Structure formats: structure tokens, C-alpha cells
């Protein structure tokens, strides 16, 4: 358990696929080809089993009960916290705060750290690659407090354009950046960014929602101050995410949500908050979800994140090659053209077929891709489109899935040929 494979082996995708009940299904009479892991991943049977076992054997509210199953439930939550900390490369599990998703994690920082530390005229530096989850909370703060928002631009390949970084950082109190774009697949150079930000005493929040599922994580090496992650994109259940924060920052932050568990004491005159991380975990936690997330971390560790990353890189290269070979100029792939600096997220524009129509035809061939703005409207504007069709690869995808995508694209071309 929890033993990371030392050297990346090669992934036996057939046996991996067999672990995922949904991938055994058919839609419209075709085997399902799931290429929307960027939105949410599928779950291996072991994750479902872990949650069923939790409910069938030890379900009880945690941190409050002295009876046996409540102790077991509490231990399960704390053991998951430790597993997540180790998986992320966090120095201590006490720096892990459970949230319902990455969105809540970022909002927690905006409300608790942001409203304590940022006032009128302070600068928050975002990037044009951000997901709305890492934009809107800062815009809410900006509207409320008169904070200024600046943007790191993107270049033609959908990567960050860092030539003016120092100017942009001038006066910045916070840099909030994604570790992997959910649209172009670009992987910003986090260490370089944190170093530059720290040089001007800016705090750094990394949205690692699209990184952690796909790459080995070492958030200590990133040098970040806050990291947001979400369970459902990394084989875990819905309803669970986490914020990691440096102990000294978390300890200095006021609570966000108020309620049970997050207190030391409550009287009619006021309350005293608990220590971190409990301070930020108000009310009954998503307990079975924490347990399920732990099982997904175990699953990923067993395969090894190095192995998974190598597999995805290989598959992404195959996809880029296949699509360019088969569709040439009819198909635009937004984002870096080579696999060196990108993940397996492929945002496509095929002729003038609207992405919505494209994904509809693909669906008839069992191929699931996302059509829309992918919660990144500012980026879409820069890319000059209102929507793309996005195929995102994960550990359970293989070359046959890419071929199915290409075949379905060709069929869509036929269908809408006029």
C-alpha cells in the first residue's frame, strides 16, 4: 500500500480499463470511449468498494464520537489526510484542509486569506489560462475591495507569455496560476513563477486541479504557498477536494465557514476558532468521499505517477500525430504542438462544425468529448473561439480510443458536409 513505483514501467492499459465499471459500458450500441477526464474522471471499482465498505462497516460522524465505529471513521479520515499529504509532497498532513472541491478551496483562500490581507489598490496577478474557479473569486474580491486584477497573457501556442513577468508582478500581493491548462494542456513553469513572485513578496496560489491527476506532484519543490486540488478528476468521488497551505499562513488566517467542529469554544458572546486544519472544516465533512479519495490515491500510487505520466505523454504524442496526419489543416488543435510542454488535453476545432454539433455526432459513435468554453471564457476570447471540442486523455485511454476519436471526427465531417 502507498508504495510508489520507483522507475516508470509501462502501463497495462487493458488491465487498467478493466478496473473501471463505466468503461465496460456501451452507448448507442458502441463501446464507450471516454475522453472527458478533464471534466471528471471515471472511478475504479476499488474506489466504489472503499465507499461501500465505509458505509457498511464504519459509517459514523467523526471527531465527535467515542464509540468504536466513530473511532474507525475518524481514523479513516486522518489516514486519508496523511495519504493525500504524502501524494502531494506536502510537508505535513496538518496543512491539508478538506473542501468539497477545488473551487471551494480557492474561495477559502480568497475569503479568509484574501479579505484579511488584500485591500484597495493591491494587485492580484492571474493568467489568461485560468479556469473560472481561479478567476471569479478574485473578481468578487476585486469588486468588493477595489483590488486590481492583472493578467499574464498567453502566446499563440496557448502558453504563458512571461517576457513582462517582472512588470506584471510589480506591486502584486498574490499570484494565482494553474499548473496545467484545462483547455490548451499547457504546463506553466510553476517554480519559475513562484520564485519570481516570492522575490517581490507576493503569495502564490497554484490551482493544481489538472496537474495532480496526471503528473507526480512535489508541491514543496514548487515553492507555492497554497495549492488547490479536487478529488473527482483523479479517480476519486465527487464532493471532495482540498486546500494545502503553508502552516504559518493557515495559522494566521481567520475561519471561513462557521459551524460545528471548527471551534475551540462557543459562548453567547462569541467563539474561539480551533487550530488548523479543523478551523476550516465546519460541519459534517464529506467522510465517505474522503475515504473514496484515499482509495483513488492508493490506486494511482500502485500504478505509479511516473508510469501514468509517461503513458499519457506517449498517448498524447500518438494523438497529435494521428490527428494531424488524418485531418491536416481541417483540424486546429489549440495549445502546444509538441508533447514536451503539454498534458493530454486537446482542444479541437474541426472545419466550421460547431463544437456542440461535433460532440453530438461523436456521442453517436460512443465518443465522449466536451464542447463549450470549458469555464475559461477569457482564454476562449484570446483563442478567438466561443467554444471548442475538448478531448482529454487519462490513464485508462489507449491508442484505440484515439483512433475511435479520429474515426468519429471523420464521420462528423461526412455528416455535416455541405
Amino acid at each position, binding site marked *: 500500500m502507498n508504495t510508489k513505483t520507483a522507475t516508470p514501467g509501462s502501463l497495462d492499459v487493458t488491465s487498467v480499463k478493466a478496473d473501471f465499471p463505466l468503461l465496460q459500458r456501451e452507448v*448507442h450500441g458502441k463501446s464507450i470511449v471516454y475522453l472527458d477526464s478533464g471534466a471528471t474522471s471515471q472511478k475504479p471499482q476499488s474506489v466504489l468498494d472503499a465507499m461501500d465498505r465505509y458505509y457498511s462497516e464504519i459509517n459514523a460522524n467523526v471527531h465527535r464520537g467515542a464509540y468504536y465505529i466513530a473511532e474507525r471513521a475518524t481514523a479513516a479520515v486522518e489516514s486519508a489526510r496523511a495519504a493525500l499529504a504524502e501524494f502531494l509532497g506536502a510537508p505535513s498532513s496538518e496543512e491539508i484542509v478538506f473542501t468539497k472541491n477545488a473551487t471551494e478551496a480557492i474561495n477559502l483562500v480568497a475569503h479568509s486569506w484574501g479579505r484579511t490581507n488584500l485591500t484597495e489598490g493591491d494587485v492580484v496577478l492571474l493568467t489568461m489560462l485560468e479556469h473560472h474557479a481561479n478567476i471569479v473569486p478574485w473578481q468578487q474580491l476585486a469588486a468588493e475591495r477595489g483590488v486590481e486584477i492583472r493578467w499574464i497573457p498567453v502566446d499563440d501556442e496557448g502558453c504563458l507569455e512571461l517576457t513582462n513577468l517582472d512588470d506584471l508582478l510589480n506591486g502584486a500581493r498574490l499570484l494565482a496560476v494553474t499548473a496545467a491548462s484545462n483547455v490548451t494542456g499547457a504546463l506553466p513553469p510553476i517554480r519559475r513563477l513562484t520564485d519570481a513572485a516570492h522575490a517581490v513578496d507576493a503569495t502564490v496560489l497554484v490551482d493544481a486541479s489538472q496537474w495532480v491527476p496526471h503528473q507526480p506532484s512535489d508541491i514543496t519543490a514548487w515553492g507555492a504557498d497554497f495549492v488547490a486540488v479536487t478529488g473527482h478528476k483523479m479517480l476519486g468521488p465527487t464532493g471532495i477536494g482540498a486546500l494545502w497551505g503553508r502552516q504559518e499562513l493557515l495559522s494566521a488566517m481567520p475561519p471561513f465557514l462557521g459551524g460545528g467542529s471548527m471551534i475551540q469554544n462557543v459562548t453567547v458572546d462569541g467563539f474561539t476558532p480551533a487550530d488548523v486544519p479543523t478551523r476550516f472544516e465546519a460541519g459534517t465533512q464529506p467522510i465517505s468521499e474522503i475515504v473514496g479519495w484515499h482509495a483513488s490515491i492508493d490506486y494511482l500510487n500502485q500504478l505509479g505517477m511516473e508510469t501514468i505520466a509517461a503513458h499519457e505523454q506517449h498517448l498524447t504524442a500518438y494523438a497529435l500525430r494521428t490527428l494531424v496526419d488524418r485531418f491536416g489543416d481541417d483540424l486546429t488543435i489549440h495549445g502546444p504542438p509538441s508533447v514536451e510542454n503539454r498534458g493530454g488535453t486537446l482542444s479541437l476545432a474541426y472545419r466550421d462544425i*460547431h463544437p*456542440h454539433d461535433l460532440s*453530438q*455526432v461523436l456521442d453517436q459513435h460512443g465518443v465522449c468529448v466536451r464542447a*463549450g*468554453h470549458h469555464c475559461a471564457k477569457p482564454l476562449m476570447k484570446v483563442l478567438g473561439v*466561443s*467554444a471548442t471540442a475538448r478531448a482529454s486523455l487519462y490513464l485508462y485511454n489507449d491508442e484505440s480510443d484515439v483512433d475511435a476519436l479520429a474515426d468519429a471526427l471523420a464521420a462528423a465531417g461526412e*455528416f455535416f458536409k455541405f
Partner: protein
Amino acid sequence: MAGLEDLYREIILDHYRNPRNRGELEVPPATMAEGFNPLCGDEVRVYLQVADGIITEVGIGGQGCSISQSSASMMSTAVVGKSIDETRSVLRKFKEMMSIHEHGLEGDHLSPDENQPGRSGLGDLEALRGVVKFPVRIKCATLGWNTLEQALTEPGDG
């Protein structure tokens, strides 16, 4: 399970390929409203020219998928020449047809109602009935219509 042919009827594809009443009208005297599908970023603009309580001209602008574009185009041909009251009546009937999906949410039978051509008095618009089998696309089909509704309430010269 519904197939592509339920969605992309020939008449729909025809309106997509050859959108009717495409273009802008001058505001005023025309009224204009803008609609928006936050899911996919589709946009529709509806221009209305009304005289003596009759819609004399319609203009459609914006961009989007085949369903939103063709539905707006079909809408434009359906309401030109109609009175405001008649237009509201078509609007209501169309939205009723599209709201069937509410009952289809419970489980497997996403669309318990089968096509019943002629029953609704919607004519060509009946072709859009198949959209209810694809609940996500209902918002595409109703985008132009909701925008029409807005445009009807804009103060104008008519």
C-alpha cells in the same frame, strides 16, 4: 435511445445551411434583444420591426450551433407577418413542446412523448420536437425564442 436523425432533421439542416432573415435592422425603429447560452457560448440577436401590432420584419444575428441557429431561423419565418398576440401564442406552444423534457427527467425514458405531427399546430417547427430527446440541446433550440420573448417586451416604435 435517440439517434442523430431525431435531432438533425433535414429541414433543420436546411435552415442551418441557409439561415432565413439573417441580418440587422436599424434600432430604432426596430427593437433588439440579445440572448446567451452560458453553457456553450452561443449568442443570438433578434431584431423586430412591428407596425400596427404586426411583426413586419425580423432580423437574426449572432452565432452558434446548428440547433440554435436553425431554430432562430425557423422562428423568424414563423412569426413574420403575425400579430403580437399570434406570436405569443406560437411562442407559448413552442416552449410547451420543448418543456416535455421535464417529465422525461425521471429515468430512462428521456422522452416519453413520441412525435405527433400536426397536433400542435406548429407546422415546420414540429421538426424541432426531436430535440427534447437531447435535453442538453433544448437550451440551444429555445435560445432564439427566449430572445424573441425579450425583444417583444422591449419598448419600440410599434
